[in-house]
């Protein structure tokens, strides 16, 4: 989260004072939202036949749903300028189900008619051009797996860690999807980007016109204008109908609801790249345009609030990713970093995408401290929390990629350990 979350309730309270509340009256009320949350939490266990083989099951449905026994949820909900987090602990493999992808929003999720939405590319180009969404789909597309991670992911674990934090609460602003779209390089060629253009503004069509300045070189390298996610149109909270996708770069630059790109010769210095998304550093400095996400990993099981039922063999499973390319190795420690073993990498090593790792661990019933450490193809090694804090300072504000720890007590209880 970039700022303290703004909930629908507080927004309505603030708006009532500001006499702007009428605009929000068509939104579900905070109370209704809370009732809905409680309903999910209080759901009774599903009733199923004692023997499902002795009678026909249910009919087909137009849209599938999860088993009644499976209820992963994002949290919190009801945000207008906040975040809802991916339930990392409930997922496996590498692809985040689209309806569980985290969302960081700055002025609500806009409702956009894809027939009316356009992308204008102008500024230092030979041919200022307007593209409809249908136009964009006529270009040759590419389909690639990539993660999107908010630059603020891990902030609570950095500043105010608690043993009772789930993987969702520690690092829930990461998700990995198969994205489909047109390479931005093809659009740049279509409009004839002028040689002197070095930056472009990418602007979203939400109520704050979220905008970031991006080097043209990234646009020519591996950027996409994406319209599909995991085989279907992008979800509204992910930028429907189109978003900018900048593989490996901080989530905020992957501008959602993209409506305009303007080519220029310098950064535009929007609020989100100056007052926010800059990193205070020791020595009276702040890093600006810190785009790349450093390599990172987290064990998602065992993790709080799991409890190991008995000593014996347990899989230590987690996810690793790097904004600079491929993950080449993930090490796992079960003794708090005294010794490390190389984990098994279960999935394809594609650049700037999540890989799933696994280490089979024989737990002897003793106090243990589990950690994972990612290494990427540039030779970068995920640092400990102590290393990161020494370099960045305790008050820094983004890019929290320290090694995460999980303590396993003798009774099998698992708790989060931030100090690695």
């Amino acid at each position: 989260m970039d700022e303290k979350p703004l909930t629908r309730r507080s927004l309505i309270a603030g708006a009532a004072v500001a006499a702007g509340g009428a605009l929000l009256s068509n939104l579900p009320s905070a109370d209704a939202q809370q009732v809905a949350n409680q309903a999910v939490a209080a759901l009774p266990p599903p009733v199923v036949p004692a023997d499902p083989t002795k009678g026909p099951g249910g009919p087909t449905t137009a849209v599938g749903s999860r088993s009644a026994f499976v209820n992963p949820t994002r949290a919190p909900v009801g945000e207008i300028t906040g975040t809802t987090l991916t339930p990392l602990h409930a997922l496996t493999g590498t692809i985040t189900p689209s309806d569980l992808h985290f969302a960081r929003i700055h002025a609500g999720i806009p409702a956009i008619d894809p027939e009316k939405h356009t992308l204008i590319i102008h500024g230092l180009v030979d041919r200022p051009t307007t593209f409809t969404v249908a136009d964009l789909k006529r270009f040759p597309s590419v389909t690639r797996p990539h993660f999107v991670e908010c630059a603020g992911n891990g902030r609570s674990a950095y500043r105010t860690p608690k043993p009772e934090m789930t993987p969702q609460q520690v690092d829930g602003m990461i998700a990995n999807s198969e994205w489909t779209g047109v390479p931005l390089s093809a659009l740049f060629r279509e409009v004839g980007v002028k040689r002197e253009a070095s930056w472009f503004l990418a602007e979203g069509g939400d109520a704050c016109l979220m905008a970031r300045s991006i080097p043209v070189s990234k646009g020519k390298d591996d950027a996409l204008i994406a319209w599909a996610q995991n085989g279907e149109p992008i979800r509204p909270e992910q930028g429907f109908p189109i978003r900018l996708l900048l593989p490996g770069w901080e989530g905020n630059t992957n501008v959602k609801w993209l409506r305009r790109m303007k080519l220029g010769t310098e950064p535009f210095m929007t609020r989100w790249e100056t007052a926010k998304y800059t990193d205070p550093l020791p020595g009276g400095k702040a890093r600006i345009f810190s785009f790349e996400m450093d390599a990172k990993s987290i064990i998602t099981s065992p993790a709080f609030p799991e409890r190991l039922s008995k000593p014996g063999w347990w899989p230590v499973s987690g996810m690793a990713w790097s904004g600079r390319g491929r993950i080449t190795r993930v090490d796992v420690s079960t003794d708090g970093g005294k010794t490390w073993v190389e984990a098994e990498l279960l999935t394809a090593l594609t650049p700037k995408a999540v890989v799933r790792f696994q280490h089979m661990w024989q737990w002897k019933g003793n106090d243990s401290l589990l950690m994972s450490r990612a290494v990427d193809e540039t030779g970068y090694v995920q640092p400990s929390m102590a290393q990161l804090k020494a370099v960045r300072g305790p008050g820094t504000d983004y890019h929290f990629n320290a090694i995460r720890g999980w303590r396993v007590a003798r009774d099998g209880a698992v708790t989060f350990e931030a100090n690695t």
Partner: protein
Amino acid sequence: MRRWIFLLAAVAGTSCRVDSRDDYLGDKGPGQLGIGHAATNEEIAAENFDVLPNGTGLPAGSGTAEQGAPIYAAQCASCHGENGEGKPPYPQLLGGPRNTFDFASDYKIPRTIGNYWPYATTLYDYIHRAMPLTTPGSLTADQTYAVTAYLLAREGILAPGQVLDAKSLAAVQMPARAHFVEDDRRGTVGGAKVR
């Protein structure tokens, strides 16, 4: 892109086969597919809101801190506080400690317009884009200049009586600007060093 294609071809063991993508995206391809339509001046003007630090993009109009005070009180204070002190979850705008830039030591040190924002033009651009939260885009250019002048004056950056317009706003030097540095993680292409 070409490297990607080359890799695909190499993996497939068909190095003599040319990916069909080369027909349109390769160096010998047409480059342009003729998709989309020429953006009209009206289309561009409807969305062309950005402001550069040198003032490019700032519209005609002007305002003073005195004119901005009642606008701030009516449109901004309910969320940001009468004195810009913030009302969580709404951020503090004014009154952060000056003559220090030690934010890395403690995340609780408030970062405000006067002690953190590096460019004054950003204020105009952001207020115009996004504020007030429930009615973005409702302020006129004069009102936006006036609120900007009010915030800058409250931070001691602008004289209370000074008229803020495109020219004078672009000339404002923000106190914190020199503290911002380029990303020194870039260019190293990662590597083992933690930065």
